């Protein structure tokens, strides 16, 4: 009975009409939500954040999970995308006249960031492991510090008055497009190179993987996506300053990636969604709203103490939850596994066997620690 059910389930998941249907359905749904106001503005905002965070987590997963490096530069990439697109849409492009030009600004933000990704990829030829982590950290600090010192773009005060053009359907479209891009990259010939670098860089070099080109491409693609996420973020918040993009922001993205699981697009989606939604669910007003059906005898004492202090408590609960997840699932929730729908058809059968077997004996994360001899 269970086997039969599983087979049905798999056949349904394998159907060719599934993905297009989901995409069109999602687009129509998000459009309807935004256009007819099916959900209130706060919920829409949270959903937009989920989308942006999915882009950030998945693109960081490309470098940290699939390639096995430990990059801390992601908030810096985000900052560059946010600043360049905001400047473009405020100073150069007549965005107010043609809202469609907004996407040009976002794309340009991504491209500028991709160029910077190239700059970070260059040291990675020579430097590996923890030292590369420091290089990326230094990059983040330099970007932040440089933005603080350029007075023409507001210095430490940042930029305000950016037009608000990021809407739920557009975030949905960008997220889907970038996920498609990353997924195709991961399962392409270069993607195999990325995995080979994680397992053993020298060996993959000997097996004729062009490690330099693969690294540059992975870093640039990751930076490109982070830049676009930053651009969407800037046009949502309408205000950006260097302080928004500090180490804490990178830490947040790292948590999403490792909570969801390394080397898994599905994991990153799950991690980003879980982290964003949980953090919002733990807001005092949300919890009070959710529990308001309780009789007053129970609700009032709860409200008096617990919910009122939740603003502080949730900041303690979240890291504690992260530590517990790591203790019980050291690889994250979906680490090294993938939703079936994300795997290309030609790889589906081989996938489960080959990739998991390889990484169980040879620890994925250990391979980027330099082995002593």
């Amino acid at each position: 009975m269970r086997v039969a059910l599983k087979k049905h389930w798999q056949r349904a998941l394998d159907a060719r009409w599934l993905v297009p249907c989901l995409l069109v359905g999602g687009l129509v749904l998000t459009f309807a939500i935004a256009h007819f106001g099916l959900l209130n503005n706060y919920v829409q905002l949270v959903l937009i954040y989920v989308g942006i965070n999915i882009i950030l987590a998945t693109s960081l997963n490309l470098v940290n999970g699939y390639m096995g490096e430990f990059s801390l530069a992601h908030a810096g990439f985000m900052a560059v995308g946010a600043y360049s697109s905001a400047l473009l849409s405020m100073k150069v492009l007549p965005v107010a006249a043609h809202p469609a030009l907004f996407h040009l600004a976002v794309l340009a933000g991504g491209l500028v960031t991709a160029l910077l990704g190239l700059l970070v990829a260059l040291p990675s030829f020579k430097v590996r492991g923890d030292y590369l982590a420091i290089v990326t950290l230094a990059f983040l600090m330099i970007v932040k510090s440089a933005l603080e010192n350029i007075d023409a773009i507001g210095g430490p005060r940042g930029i305000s008055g950016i037009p608000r053009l990021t809407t739920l359907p557009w975030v949905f479209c960008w997220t889907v497009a970038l996920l498609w891009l990353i997924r195709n990259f991961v399962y392409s010939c270069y993607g195999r190179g990325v995995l080979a670098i994680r397992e053993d860089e020298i060996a993959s070099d000997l097996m004729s993987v062009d490690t330099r080109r693969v690294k540059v491409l992975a870093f640039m693609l990751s930076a490109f996506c982070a830049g676009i996420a930053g651009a969407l973020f800037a046009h949502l918040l309408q205000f950006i300053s260097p302080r928004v993009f500090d180490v804490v922001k990178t830490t947040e993205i790292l948590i999403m990636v490792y909570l969801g699981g390394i080397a898994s697009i599905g994991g990153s989606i799950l991690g980003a969604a879980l982290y964003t939604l949980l953090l919002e669910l733990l807001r005092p007003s949300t919890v009070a709203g959710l529990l308001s059906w309780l009789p007053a005898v129970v609700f009032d004492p709860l409200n008096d103490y617990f919910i009122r202090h939740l603003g502080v408590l949730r900041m303690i609960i979240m890291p504690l939850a992260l530590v517990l997840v790591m203790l019980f699932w050291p690889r994250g929730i979906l680490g090294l596994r993938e939703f079936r729908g994300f795997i290309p058809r030609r790889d589906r059968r081989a996938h489960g066997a080959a990739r998991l077997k390889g990484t169980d004996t040879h620890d994925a994360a250990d391979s980027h620690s330099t082995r002593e001899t």
Partner: protein
Amino acid sequence: MTQPGVYWLQQILNALQLGSIYALIALGYSMVYGILTMINFAHGDVFMVGAFICFLAATLLKLPFVLTLLITMTASAGLGVLIERLAYKPLRNAPRVSAIITALGVGLFLENLTLAFYPYPQHVPPLLHNVTWQLGGVALSSLQLIVISLSLTLMLVLDYVVRRTPVGVAMRAISWDKTSVPLMGVPVNLIISITFAIGAGLAGAAGTMYSLAYPVIDPYMGIMVGWKAFIAAVVGGIGTIRGAVIGAFILGGVEIMVVALLPSTYRDLVVFSLLLTLIVIRPHGILGSPRVQKV
């Protein structure tokens, strides 16, 4: 207007003070890395908790300086061992990155827990009677003298412990070869706990001295100081004890010189650019030896 020579002598003194605080924290990073090849990102926050313990001992218990220092070091060491036992030990055979993320989580937890008790920056009362001597135009305060000499003493003691005592030999042995050392009867778990205790104790001492030298403390101060101390450890060659000290003094020197020469907002820009250049030129730090990777 003072003479340039005197001015620079003063700056060197400031650099020594900042550098010795960085060095005490960097040692903890380097020791833990040497033994477990793990970056203990919660270390900067142990330093912050140390500063707050010092603040509590000074305000609530009104203890004298020496007792405050001892209590802070002991409590921080206890905290370090507790974190290691509860959060890191179960992950010793897990992927290395899980331990790093756990460390980040522990750090956030410590920050926000402290924030829940102290939402505003706190002012630490002066623990010592501060005397300032004028030596040919250079102002030398007794505070600076104590911070520098006490840190140097602690570093020398640590160097002795690591080089000459059985515990130190065991530590070096574990960092050399993790698989065969337990077979020789070395209690690995105990030695790792001792390493964490020493590292966290030194961070506690750094917290005390920081709150002496720069008396305003807040729950987020561990982030920046911690990252910088980590960078100092990397610059010196992570895993080496003398390298960490050298890296910390270089970092302190560069920071003070940048502030003396340029507007202070350029400090991070210059420090991190220098770091980037150094790492690309010497990827294994000043004293670190390049590791040969075999296939």
